[in-house]
């Protein structure tokens, strides 16, 4: 008893402070740094720029292409309605400023300045003008953290929109990603457009992802292709978050992003979730 008392007199303050420090650190870790991110968001708010208005294209060729796209989209929707395949009306996106980048060098993440208060949920799809950017992995009241497509752990089922050849894509840092095809001889060429496939549980199908940059069909065990992501991932300032609408979640096989899917789709069964405790 006396020895304990002497130990406490000598090391008591140190021991208390150490345990307080470790306890606080564990608490912050458990909450995914919510306090820090909220403070960061509050501090950076005055420095944020206004969102740039969508560039009004005066190029007649571009205008014609846009009109044709609208025409084709509406036609496509009518055909889907006729087939009884119609999805619910498009969810409205939440425009969010990019307030921070990854806090270490190994993860490709960004922080957005909109959170649960604005309707952002874990698993929401994040897009920017140009294509898909990534997926929300954790949310606080006013911020959210996004795992980018260029992160090696982020895997997406994708499809070559010309030939419908399917594969799974993983990030490869910077603005590049690698597709592994399921088939031995996929019909794929340089310059082909890549979109998310209907097999992807985490992303709605048909979103543009990027373009094929090079193809390596001799690669074993599966042919591979390098794609250039069409979203400017290195220079993002604003992004648009699409929370999963209820109708969409029903049509998807694995809506829960943090669990292993009940019926694992082949491209995502091995994906570790970076936010799982």
């Amino acid at each position, binding site marked *: 008893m006396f020895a304990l008392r002497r130990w406490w007199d000598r090391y008591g303050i140190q021991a208390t402070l150490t345990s307080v420090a470790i306890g606080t*650190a564990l608490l912050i870790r458990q909450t995914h740094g919510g306090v820090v991110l909220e403070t960061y968001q509050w501090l950076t708010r005055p420095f944020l720029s206004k969102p740039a208005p969508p560039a009004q294209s005066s190029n007649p060729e571009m205008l014609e292409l846009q009109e044709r796209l609208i025409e084709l989209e509406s036609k496509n929707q009518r055909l889907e309605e006729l087939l009884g395949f119609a999805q619910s009306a498009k969810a409205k996106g939440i425009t969010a400023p990019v307030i921070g980048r990854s*806090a270490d060098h190994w993860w490709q993440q960004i922080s957005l300045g909109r959170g649960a208060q604005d309707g952002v949920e874990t698993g929401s799809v994040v897009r920017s003008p140009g294509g898909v950017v990534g997926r929300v*992995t954790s949310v606080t009241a006013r911020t959210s953290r996004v795992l980018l497509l260029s992160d090696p752990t982020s895997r997406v089922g994708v499809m070559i929109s010309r030939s419908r050849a399917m594969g799974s894509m993983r990030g490869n840092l910077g603005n590049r990603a690698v597709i592994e095809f399921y088939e031995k001889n996929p019909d794929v060429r340089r310059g082909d457009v890549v979109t998310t496939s209907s097999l992807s549980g985490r992303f709605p199908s048909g979103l543009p992802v990027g373009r094929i940059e090079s193809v390596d069909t001799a690669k074993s065990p599966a042919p591979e292709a390098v794609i250039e992501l069409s979203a400017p991932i290195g220079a993002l300032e604003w992004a648009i978050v699409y929370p999963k609408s209820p109708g969409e979640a029903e049509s998807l096989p694995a809506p829960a992003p943090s669990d292993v899917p009940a019926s694992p789709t082949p491209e995502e069964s091995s994906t570790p979730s*970076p936010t799982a405790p």
Partner: protein
Amino acid sequence: MSQALDNFIEQYPASRPFINWGVTAGSVFLCLLILPARLPGMELAGISPNWLLIWVVAWSVKRTLWQGAIAGLVLGLLQDAMTAPFPTHAISLAIVGAVTARLQKQRYVQEDFISVALIVFGMAVVAETIIAIQFSFEGGRSLLEIWTYHQFVALSSAILSSLWAPVVYFPLNRWWESMGQSDSI
């Protein structure tokens, strides 16, 4: 400012440890806040200085092995909070803290600034290597990708962190020295 603080501490000596720990914790919080920011001049190919590593080195240089290791553990857990819990940064930063505390730097280099910059350079390489080893065991990424990326990350992080090390080290060292001096008085 410092004069007013000195007067305050002289008047209320009981508040001194609280102020000391408050400033220390505040400096950690500042380092955490600056982690997601990419300010101009602090970035090299998308890589920014590893502020928490600089803090751990600044803390451990004049402390014991256990103090260094525990500070590394705490800051590693905090960095996990800011990114993802696996692989953990706690192991790498704890080892950095322990090794820095064990280094007998006065035997090799005299000048404080330069030796701290050198230690930060070496420790940044050590920390990134430990993270890379964890990634290799974890799987999910290919070994070739991990170690090619490791070369790039370790070098850029080491250069940037050692260049920015005095910014963290100088004020913290001054503060802890002033606290230590009033201790001996």
